[in-house]
């Protein structure tokens, strides 16, 4: 009774995993399977209420968009002299968050780090959903969305927007593949565990999605090969995605954009905000689905350290940018610095510097704040600050006058804010739906490669009353 789906005695030549199969206590394993598959098994009224609320906000966002389709972009706050605003800033922000999965699933996998295996699935959720939501924004921002097909018919290689479209499409496809591959053994587990009491469509879904996985060596080899290729390919694709996103700014001649540092700067900022997004989602799902045994202080701390490291990298980039331009003070630079540091954007700018770059490093350095709550707080700061930073790049960058005219001010209108709220609602909605369809922890990987978290205690099972049982079996 100690075989688990996905684990079979392996031949020596089986590819991929170096360590021999772990001996895990069956109790722990069973608890993990139960906890991880519980959302797939049944749904409570709270979930439906949550989805309903999200749909309401999303509906309001769609209504705002219909207003924009009807009257044109005049309903936004953008005008000729600041012709990009909240939409493009949010586009860059969401694409940035999507680098969460790249870092955790790919980079850390390549380096054989094991601590992140319990959160790698959530990271991939974020990646795919953030890409889907982020990719909507350029279309929302278009003045003539009815001419979308012109991009296919008349597209030019030489345009940074075309690079964006190609890179994001490639990355979305790759991330979807990379989300799906480790899901196959978990789908097989769900197919087997959620037996006859599950509705037929669910059974059919899991059976189809598991593509007949039974843990045989040949199948394992195929899966390991596919995952190795994906984890190596997805890293340069992800780097290129945010680099070309930065190039829609850096390929122009504006004072604030005309710098070669943008590619690296944006990629670092993307990974930074991605880590914060994982931390936030981790904290939320951990509480909701009672996963404290598998997502422990270790995961939070390590991600917190990585956040601190990236905050230092971002500080370095910012110092480079402002020191190099500030020393020379070319035309336009004094205006830009003034508007950022003491002018209309001062509050946002200094919150970004101290709250977004300083606070996370300090939180991780000070022992008192180096807790799960502290790391989550730092993540919230980072997410707010990185959205603000994208906003500053777009709006403050465009506000620098090109000719002798008075600079214009930009304020987002209700339509833009509603659509942004709708986008966040869509993000949460898709994550919620994913959490219902796919196990939020990569069960087989945690069982095979990680085992029980050192120092984690089994949480009290607590009352199972009111919670739909799994396969109708009585609570333990």
């Amino acid at each position: 009774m100690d075989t688990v789906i996905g684990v079979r005695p392996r031949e020596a030549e089986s590819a991929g995993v170096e360590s021999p199969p772990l001996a895990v206590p069956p109790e722990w394993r069973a608890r993990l399977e139960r906890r991880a598959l519980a959302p797939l098994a049944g749904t409570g009224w709270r979930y439906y209420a949550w989805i309903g609320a999200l749909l309401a906000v999303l509906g309001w966002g769609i209504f705002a968009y219909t207003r924009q389709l009807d009257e044109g972009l005049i309903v936004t706050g953008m005008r000729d002299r600041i012709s990009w605003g909240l939409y493009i800033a949010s586009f860059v922000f969401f694409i940035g968050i999507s680098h969460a999965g790249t870092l955790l699933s790919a980079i850390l996998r390549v380096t054989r780090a094991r601590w992140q295996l319990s959160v790698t699935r959530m990271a991939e959720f974020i990646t795919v959903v953030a890409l889907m939501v982020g990719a909507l924004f350029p279309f929302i921002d278009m003045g003539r969305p009815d001419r979308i097909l012109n991009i296919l018919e008349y597209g030019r290689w030489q345009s940074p927007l075309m690079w964006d479209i190609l890179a994001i499409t490639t990355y979305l496809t790759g991330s979807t593949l990379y989300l799906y591959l480790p899901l196959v053994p978990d789908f097989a587990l769900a197919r087997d565990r959620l037996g006859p009491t599950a509705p037929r469509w669910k059974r059919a879904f899991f059976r189809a999605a598991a593509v007949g996985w039974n843990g045989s060596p040949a199948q394992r080899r195929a899966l390991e090969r596919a995952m190795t290729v994906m984890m190596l390919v997805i890293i340069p694709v992800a780097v290129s995605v945010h680099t070309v996103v930065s190039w829609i700014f850096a390929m122009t001649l504006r004072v604030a954009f005309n710098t070669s540092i943008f590619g690296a700067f944006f990629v670092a900022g993307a990974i930074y905000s991605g880590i914060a997004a994982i931390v936030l989602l981790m904290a939320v799902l951990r509480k909701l689905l009672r996963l404290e045994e598998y997502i422990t202080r270790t995961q939070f701390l390590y991600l917190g350290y990585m956040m601190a490291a990236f905050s230092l990298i971002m500080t370095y980039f910012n110092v480079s940018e402002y020191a190099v331009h500030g020393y020379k003070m070319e035309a336009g630079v004094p205006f830009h610095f003034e508007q950022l540091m003491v002018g209309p954007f001062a509050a946002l700018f200094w919150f970004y510097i101290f709250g977004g770059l300083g606070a996370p490093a300090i939180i991780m350095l000070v022992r008192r704040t180096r807790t799960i709550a502290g790391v989550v707080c730092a993540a919230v700061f980072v997410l707010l600050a990185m959205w603000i930073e994208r906003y500053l790049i777009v709006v403050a960058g465009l506000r620098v006058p090109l000719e002798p005219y008075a600079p214009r001010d930009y304020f987002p209108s209700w339509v833009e804010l509603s659509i942004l709220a709708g986008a966040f609602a869509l993000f949460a909605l898709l994550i919620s739906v994913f959490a219902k369809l796919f196990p939020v922890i990569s069960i087989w990987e945690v069982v095979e490669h990680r085992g029980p978290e050192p120092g984690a205690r089994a949480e009290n099972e607590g009352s199972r009353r009111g919670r739909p049982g799994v396969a109708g079996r009585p609570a333990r």
Partner: protein
Amino acid sequence: MAKGLGRRSLLRFLGAGVAATSAAGALAGRGAEPVAASTHPAVARGGRLRRWAMVIDLRRCDGCQSVGKPPQCTRACIEGHFAPQPMEWIEVYEGHLPGGGTQFIPTPCQQCQNAPCVNVCPVAATFATPEGVVLIDQQRCIGCRICMEACPYDRRFFNWGQAPQPPEALFMEYDAEHQSPAIKGTVMKCDFCPDMARSGRLPYCAQGCPNNAIYYGDLEEDLATNGEEVVRFARFIATSSAYRLKEDLGTEPRVFYIPGHGEAAGRSPFKRGRLPTQWPWQKRVRQGAVPWTR
């Protein structure tokens, strides 16, 4: 006879560089000298393509202070193209000069030879014709506005809403060289009026200027005119120390400026301010539409 003719031409040359005679006067009564005439105004002699360019003589531009009206080049362009409010396809900026004075700089689309807007457009809606004019096909433009970020001269304008249409637009078929009627959600800008040149006329702005400060010319045949005199383009800009805007950005514009502050029109550099631009045609046909601001 020869000496008398020489004296008349002498008097004309005394005004060389400053407009003196009308075209009709120059051509009438000149005797049987052959005048090299092209078969078609938009094609250079020998069937070669024109390469349109402009020279703007800032010595003559005083922001129309001397005529007491808003800048007439902008007015003529707005009336000719039905440019919606607040678009000023040729905009007269007031730049500060060292020493405390100001100068007026009429700025049309610079028709860059290394145009950043052409480089970044994802659907080639902004394109350069072989004659060097940068045009926008508003029936292809998707309204992404990356061209507006790329232009370093603030010369592109977006139709944020539906601009009211004048009655004349109902009879017009859309043409990238005339850009009327305005299409919501697309970009517009100065198009150098190549359709005017094809019928042998100067662009609206050049026609509208009361001081004849705008010269329209051809780099291929090395000529330019402001409606009164014809000059050799290269020699004209060389002897007047002409320059281009933001030369160090490498956009290679085709609009040259002769430095000045309106002194040929009697303006002192310390006399600031010009009247604000108006859009009379839009006041006529407002139809309840609220114009947006720049």
